[in-house]
Every structure is written in structure tokens, then in C-alpha cells.
């Protein structure tokens, strides 16, 4: 059994991206570097044999996904699960959390000028954001951050793939932020672990 076959089998049988570290656990011959070399080899094989899928880097891991040119075929088939799209308010709340994390509900609402608890709750249920700690101060409100599912949903390799603030048309002056205490994920019951 070749290493390319083993890695391919794992990627093929997984419904989420697997990191090089995860993948290296399967065989003693593997470490993170060799996993990446194997993945390069697989990519070349798929390219050469014109497979309809390829290995993409998502959320700090690797995932087998169809190539974009097949969307026109796949979006017509009922048996193909279609990607969910988030509403404009959900995207707005997510972008605030993504750039300002960790932050609390009150800060999100301050920025948007509207109540956001419903949207926030749904985002937590969908595991796109999760509580990551508590702020200092009155009531020690929960602070939220984005999860790995968030990265997967947008196809980001990491948070570094977020559009940089200075690429956005309006660059706002930063408000002085209270230094947050690095405060464990208490009370999160590990929602983003899966």
C-alpha cells in the first residue's frame, strides 16, 4: 500500500479537512513534511489524469473538493447537497466578529446599531462562532470568536485569508480596545471541537 493511496483514502473518507498533523498519525513513516509531499504528489496525479476533484487547503487542513467548473452540472442535481448561504445580517455579524474577535454581543450591536442576539444565536448553533472567553467588567459578558467551521464555510485556509482591512474601501480609525484577558473557553462545552 503506497502512502499516496493511504492519504487519499483518508481524505476521501473524511467529511472535513484533515491537517497534515492529523494525517501523519496514520503511518509511522509519515510526518507533517512527508504528508505535504504526498499531497503534492496526489495533486499532480489528479491534474494529470484530469480528475473532476482536487485537494484544496481549507481551515488549516486538506480536503477533496470538486473543481469549480463542475458547478453548473452539480447545482442542478437534487441528490447533490447544496451549500447553504448566509443572510446579509449574518454575514455582517460574522465579519464584525472575524475582525474584532474576541468581542461580546454588546459591541456587535453597538457597531450595527441593531439588536443581534437572534443572529448571534443562530451563528453559534451553526458553530460558525463560539464563546471563547469572558470580558472583564460588569457581568463578565461572553466573548465570541470564529471557529474552524467558519473557515470551512468560506474556504479560508486561516484567518489570515480574511480580506485585509486596508483592502476594504473604507479604513476606519481603530477604537482603543480594552485589553482582553486571555480567558479560557469556559462554558463553551467545546462546541467547535468536532
Amino acid at each position, binding site marked *: 500500500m503506497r502512502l499516496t493511496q493511504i492519504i487519499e483514502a483518508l481524505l476521501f473518507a473524511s467529511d472535513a479537512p484533515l491537517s497534515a498533523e492529523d494525517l501523519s498519525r496514520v503511518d509511522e513513516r509519515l510526518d507533517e513534511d512527508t504528508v505535504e509531499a504526498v499531497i503534492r504528489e496526489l495533486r499532480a496525479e489528479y491534474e494529470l489524469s484530469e480528475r473532476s476533484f482536487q485537494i484544496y487547503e481549507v481551515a488549516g487542513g486538506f480536503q477533496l*473538493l470538486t473543481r469549480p467548473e463542475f458547478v453548473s452540472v452539480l447545482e442542478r442535481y437534487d441528490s447533490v447537497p447544496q451549500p447553504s448561504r448566509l443572510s446579509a445580517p449574518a454575514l455582517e455579524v460574522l465579519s464584525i466578529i472575524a475582525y474584532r474577535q474576541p468581542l461580546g454581543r454588546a459591541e456587535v450591536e453597538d457597531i450595527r446599531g441593531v439588536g443581534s442576539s437572534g443572529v448571534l444565536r*443562530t451563528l453559534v448553533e451553526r458553530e460558525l462562532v463560539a464563546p471563547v472567553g469572558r470580558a472583564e467588567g460588569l457581568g463578565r459578558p461572553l466573548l465570541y470568536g470564529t471557529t474552524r467551521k467558519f473557515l470551512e464555510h468560506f474556504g479560508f485556509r486561516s484567518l489570515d485569508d480574511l480580506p485585509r482591512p486596508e483592502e476594504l474601501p473604507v479604513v476606519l480609525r481603530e477604537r482603543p480596545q480594552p485589553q482582553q484577558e486571555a480567558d479560557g473557553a469556559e462554558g463553551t462545552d467545546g462546541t467547535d471541537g468536532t
Partner: protein
Amino acid sequence: MKSPVEAVAEPHNPTANVDGAFVVELDRFQGPLDLLLHLIREQDIDIFDIPIGQITEQFLRAMSDVERLGLDRAGEFLEMAATLVRIKAQMLMPRRTDALGELEDPRAELVRRLLEYEHFREASLRLAEAQADRGRHYARGHVPPRTTSQPVVAELECTWDEVFAAALRVGERPKGPDDHVVAQRAVPIEEKIGLIVQTLAQLARVEFRRLVEPFGDKLHGVVTFMAGLELSKRRQLSMRQSEPFADIWLYRRDDVDPDEADVDGTGMDEADTEDADAPDADH
């Protein structure tokens, strides 16, 4: 009724320009800031010089059927309306000056909020694009469940001793040929001066090697050495070496042992450009 999160994001064009008057469908807006921003953009208004009377009037007109939105959302619009009316009144009064003696603009806080909100609006449009890009890739539709149970995240077994042992080894890694992938960046000498000063604030002396090893490349070594020379010139430390090719030590200046006094003013004994990699010289 779709849940607020599932609903498909669609570009909204909630106003129609009828005879120069804006007819606004209030419930198409996410909130008062969204509506304000829309009014400002639609009329090409300079956000730093908002005609507050005109905007207030348009905002109030747009709000005429606000009660349809329900109490909570209506309240948000009403609050903004109150703010606009207050700013409008303040514009008519003599301005106060701020701490710097500049005239305060009553609109300043509103402008800040609008800019901030617009920033995240733009960011959310970029997220929508990323979402659409990702939506063109499909994962495997059916991944059969494994016979063995899904891996459970086991209770963490890890002692502080292990972490601490790892801490002691930080910087020991032999640098492989692949290390050039780490972007080479300039190493400012100030950074190294800071590192040395901070270290000597805690330790009376430190081996040159220990300042350099964790960074592991030649450039850091050279710059750290230059930083050491600079500090010895400033008489903040002395550099010592017991014999050629031996380790170089940096001594805090006030702690210099007079017995091993450093005679020449350079603060450096046997100072040649050191090559730490040189073979042991029997000497």
C-alpha cells in the same frame, strides 16, 4: 418564513426615486445605520459634511410606517431619529471647543459610527464573495460512517514538565534546508539591542550563543554581534572570550569582576570576527 440566517443574501435596492422623493421600504434595511448610509450614498453626500437637516427630514419620512417593524426594531429607528434631531439642534447652537481648542462638530460621533459600520458592510460583502467561491466546490456528498466509533477527543494528558521541557529546547532545532520558506526579513539592530538590554536586566551575564541560537540564522547572529559591539561602545556591557573560538559572554557592565577586568576600552578581549563554527583550536 426563512430564518434570518438562512435567507439568501441579495443585493438590495430598496428605494425608488419617484419625482425626486425617496420612497423607502423600511423593512429592507438592517437598521437605522443601514438606512442612513443608503440615503447618504444615494445622494452622493460627503459623509464628512452631512447636511443634517435634509438627512433628518428624509430619515423621518422613511420612518413614517416604522411601527410595522414591531417594537424592538422600531425602537432602534426611533433612537436614531432622536439622535439626528438632537444633532440638528446642536448645529444651531454655539459650538463648544474640545481639549485641543478645536470647534466640536456635533456630527462627529455619528460620522465615526457610519464609517465603522460601512467598513464592516464592505467586509461582509467580501465574505459573501468568499462564500460564493467556496460554494462552487462540492465535498463528497456521502461519507459512509466508519465502523469504529468517531474519534473522541480524549482527555488531555499532559504535564507542565513536558511543556517546560519543550520550552527549554526552543531554538535547538537544527535548521533544515527548507527553512528559507520562512520569509527572510530585515533584522533591525534596535531589536537586538533591546533583547540584550532586557536579558542583562535579568542576568548578570549571558552567552552570546544563547542570544542567537533561538533565531538560528546567520543574519541574527551578525546583527546581535553588532548590537553587542554598539552596547559595549556605550559602555553598557563588556564582551568577553576566554580564548579564541571559545564562547563569547556578554557581561552587564556594573557587574564586571575586577579580577577579569577588561583592559582595553573596546570591551572585547581577543576580538576578531568570531566564527563560532570553527573547529576547536588547540591552543
